């Protein structure tokens, strides 16, 4: 435990977290309104234009019928993969460093899943009929096609979203109660509603613990299956370079990798702008850095295997797709991805690097740029080089696509900014578990009715 955290007492935790909800400077509003404005301008306006004009507003064409909308979808699903999953794993392994960061990590999961869901609407040609992909009783007497990996995807993501919402909500109930007792006005009404009458009795704690652990155990295999299923959207085709058995683990590792990098970015920003320096410390960055290093090595290994199997297959279509990916039209992007996701993370081997905040921020952003490139290349390079050379092509995203990508980033930011002011972004009760029991010398403010 670092020295600065030892000076904290229970009351400080309550005070700091409630302050993070209530005390809002002008910088926050500038950030919120900028994010909101960018969302409306760069996401919703171009999207409405696309709804009227057709998918033709994007740059997709005949062999490349999938484009950045789908790579954004995979990217956001991927980003969602570390928060709740990591939180569950660390909860089950009783890792104390989880406690200060898990709430915001889980929120990241939730919001990136939501943005991913919106990206599906942007991606399909007729989003006004998207509900046909759900199995619901209807006058057409039609089921969706249960053989379709896209349908598995709908199911998996809906389940994961439900599970993640339940997990983050359940873990927040005692905090809602703690904040309820310290706020007034509409906030008090809001937290009364959200805390569902939590009083902190032994029985309530007991049931919370049971349910929480149960959900944690449930969500780990769920998270692994969700991104496996996303990978099957590709791997179940017979397109060269997509039809690979390695794809499920490849996507899962890639997802956790980009998600963990995302957590580092979010932790840095929370620490800097919400004054959580005492809670989010070098311990967190050190541990997340180690995790990132391990994941980057796994990711690199799977990439090597992917190249090896394509080469070893001896199939001309596979070889062409491989050569095109490495040295073709998008070759520069491939090597950028290797630089950002395979080589740069090797710096994490040094403890000094892992415990310095700004380099970690830069690296985490670089990793996510690289991971977005990876998803783009999966879609763009393999569709450009399929079996019949007559149908070869290439694809460049249009201005509408770039704008919507930017807008989806702003949408995520907006949601997250709303979250930090509505939901305690650091778990009050779990952080207290890591502190020493307070003595009675810590001032008049020390005693507060606990949740």
């Amino acid at each position, binding site marked *: 435990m670092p020295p600065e955290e030892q000076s904290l007492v229970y009351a400080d935790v309550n005070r700091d977290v409630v302050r993070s909800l209530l005390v809002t400077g002008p910088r926050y509003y500038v950030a919120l309104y900028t994010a909101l404005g960018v969302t409306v301008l760069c996401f919703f306006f171009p999207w409405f234009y696309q709804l009227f*004009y*057709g*998918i*033709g507003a994007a*740059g*997709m*064409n*005949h*062999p*490349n*019928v*999938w484009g950045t909308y789908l790579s954004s979808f995979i990217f956001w699903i991927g980003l969602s993969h570390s928060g709740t999953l990591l939180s569950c794993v660390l909860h089950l392994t009783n890792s104390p460093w989880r406690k200060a960061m898990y709430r915001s990590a889980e929120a990241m999961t939730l919001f990136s899943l939501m943005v991913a869901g919106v990206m599906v609407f942007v*991606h*399909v*040609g*007729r*989003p006004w*009929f*998207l509900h*046909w*992909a759900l199995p619901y009783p209807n006058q057409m007497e*039609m*089921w*969706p*096609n249960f*053989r*379709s*990996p*896209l*349908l598995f995807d*709908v199911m998996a993501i809906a389940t994961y979203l439900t599970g993640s919402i339940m997990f983050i909500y359940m873990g927040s109930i005692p905090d809602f109660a703690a904040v309820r007792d310290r706020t007034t006005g509409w906030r008090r009404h809001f937290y009364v509603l959200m805390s569902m009458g939590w009083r902190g009795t032994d029985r309530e704690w007991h049931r919370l613990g049971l349910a929480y652990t149960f959900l944690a155990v449930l969500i780990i295999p769920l998270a692994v299956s969700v991104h496996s299923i996303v990978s099957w*959207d590709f791997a*179940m*085709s*017979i*397109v060269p370079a997509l039809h690979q058995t390695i794809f499920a683990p490849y996507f899962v590792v890639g997802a956790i990798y980009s998600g963990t990098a995302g957590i580092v970015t979010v932790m840095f920003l929370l620490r800097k702008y919400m004054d959580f320096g005492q809670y989010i410390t070098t311990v967190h960055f050190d541990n997340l850095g180690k995790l990132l290093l391990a994941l980057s090595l796994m990711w690199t290994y799977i990439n090597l295997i992917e190249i090896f199997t394509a080469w070893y297959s001896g199939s001309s279509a596979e070889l062409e797709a491989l050569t095109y990916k490495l040295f073709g039209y998008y070759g520069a992007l491939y090597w950028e991805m290797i630089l950002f996701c395979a080589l740069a993370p090797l710096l994490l081997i040094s403890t000094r690097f892992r415990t310095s905040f700004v380099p970690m921020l830069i690296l985490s952003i670089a990793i996510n740029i690289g991971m977005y490139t990876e998803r783009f290349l999966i879609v763009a390079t393999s*569709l450009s080089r*399929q*079996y*019949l*050379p*007559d*149908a070869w*092509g290439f694809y460049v995203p249009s201005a509408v696509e770039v704008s919507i990508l930017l807008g989806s980033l702003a949408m995520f930011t907006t949601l997250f900014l709303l979250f930090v002011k509505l939901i305690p972004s650091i778990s009050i009760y779990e952080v207290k578990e890591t502190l020493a029991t307070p003595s009675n010398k810590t001032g008049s403010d020390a005693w507060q009715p606990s949740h």
Partner: protein
Amino acid sequence: MDFFERIRDGWDKHRKPAHEDDFDYAWTMAIDLDICTGCGACVTACQAENNLPIVGEEEFARGREIKWIRIERYWEGEFPDAKLSFIPMMCQHCDAAPCETVCPVSATYHNQDGLNTQIYNRCIGTRACAVYCPYEVRYFNYTSHHWEEPLDQQLNPDVTVREKGVMEKCTFCIQRIRQAKDRAKDDGRRRIRDGEVQPACVQSCPAQAMTFGDRKDTQSRVAKMINNPRAYRVLDELNTSPSVIYLKKVDADAP
């Protein structure tokens, strides 16, 4: 052992498309590449018959033209020693079609006659079928198209005009098959006679390189062409089991 055989037989039964056991037709097209001149009459005929939009210069340059049948050209060597080979490519109406399994809303499915059909008003435009198709013969409507006066007067009333966001592809001129079935029923016949129905491309082929018919009728011309030693199917190794048979061009210069 008996148990496993029973499972295998039961599995096979459900894996087979319905037309193989329960229906009368298995529509097949045979294209003799030795006769084909690559003139493109089939492409034009298809355009006229099936209300294919003329996407315009700008969209064409973006690679969004819609051609249910296209002549693929492959050049070998450099000018003046260049050699051109070509092959008409359209939906192969695979019996094990990858596009059918991936559509989340079953907008594309195998019908009773062995046709791979596309239901435009069920399609939600995920475009996954186009990705899964190894022949790249599915075309997406990136925008809604319109026909200026008086071109709208020449639209085929038997064929839907597709709107933006919908996938489309060759149907083997299913509207003509339906009409032929109706005629056969009116005449009190159970089956369509061989040669009675022709898709627009087959009808318009000046060299008569294309033959259309039912391969379940062992006396039909296509059924006989299947047994031609030159017969092959494109990308047969992918096990999509296509319904279009090509007869290989006999190349005197081939090594």
